[in-house]
């Protein structure tokens, strides 16, 4: 399930971007290579990889199941990427989010952004992750020795997204 897109960046250039929702694992080197246009205009790539983490206190954690809203997930992440592109002069952006059964240490999500300059790449990458966490229709259920349990949304996640609202671009 792929959603490709070309929008306009804060610099007025066309931004190449793609959002994938998939069960299969992803290869970060290929994803980062995809971000490079070949024209050597990118001076900076910032990336984020999220992993299935085991809290020190929860030795009984076994795995998690990620459910999503097909169609809306891609569109909502695509809209977030577009908003980032309107705000910072990014060149390319790519998001991959896995769904289905995932185990400790597995990669869950990857966000990569290229730009001429590092400030824009860092900010856009973190912005996309923050809004993805707060808005994209994905839900985690954890399985442990004690049974299964839907993960509760964290208030801190919506706060992290909110802080961009009053922030100046940099």
């Amino acid at each position, binding site marked *: 399930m792929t959603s490709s897109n070309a929008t306009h960046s804060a610099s007025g250039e066309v931004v190449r971007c793609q959002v994938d929702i998939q069960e299969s694992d992803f290869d970060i080197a290929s994803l980062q290579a995809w971000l490079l246009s070949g024209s050597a205009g990118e001076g900076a790539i910032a990336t984020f990889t999220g992993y299935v983490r085991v809290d020190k206190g929860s030795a009984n954690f076994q795995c998690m199941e990620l459910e999503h809203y097909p169609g809306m997930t891609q569109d909502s992440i695509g809209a977030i990427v577009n908003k980032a592109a309107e705000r910072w002069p990014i060149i390319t952006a790519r998001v991959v989010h896995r769904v289905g059964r995932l185990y400790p240490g597995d990669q*869950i999500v990857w966000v990569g952004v290229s730009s001429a300059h590092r400030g824009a790449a860092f900010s856009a990458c973190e912005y996309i992750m923050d809004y993805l966490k707060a808005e994209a229709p994905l839900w985690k259920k954890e399985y442990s020795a004690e049974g299964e349990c*839907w993960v509760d949304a964290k208030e801190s996640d919506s706060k992290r997204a909110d802080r961009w609202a009053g922030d100046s671009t940099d």
Partner: protein
Amino acid sequence: MLHIVFFARVKEQLGCAKLELEWDETLASIDALQEQLCARENGAWREVLSEDNIIRAVNQAVVAGDAVLCDGDEIAFFPPVTGG
């Protein structure tokens, strides 16, 4: 026809992933639809669908307050998201 979908905890608690209802004038807004759904199963659905933090979407876009529903719309009810 209204295409209604439920996700995650809401889907599990209702024991229902999707539902189709004939659209008519009594289902012309998402608040009206939600009230009709709450009446199902002797109020068992009300407990699930009247949770404060439930999120509602029309045609895959989240709506903040009440929203007009038209024949053919896809309406979703789901809990706060936890991806990433």
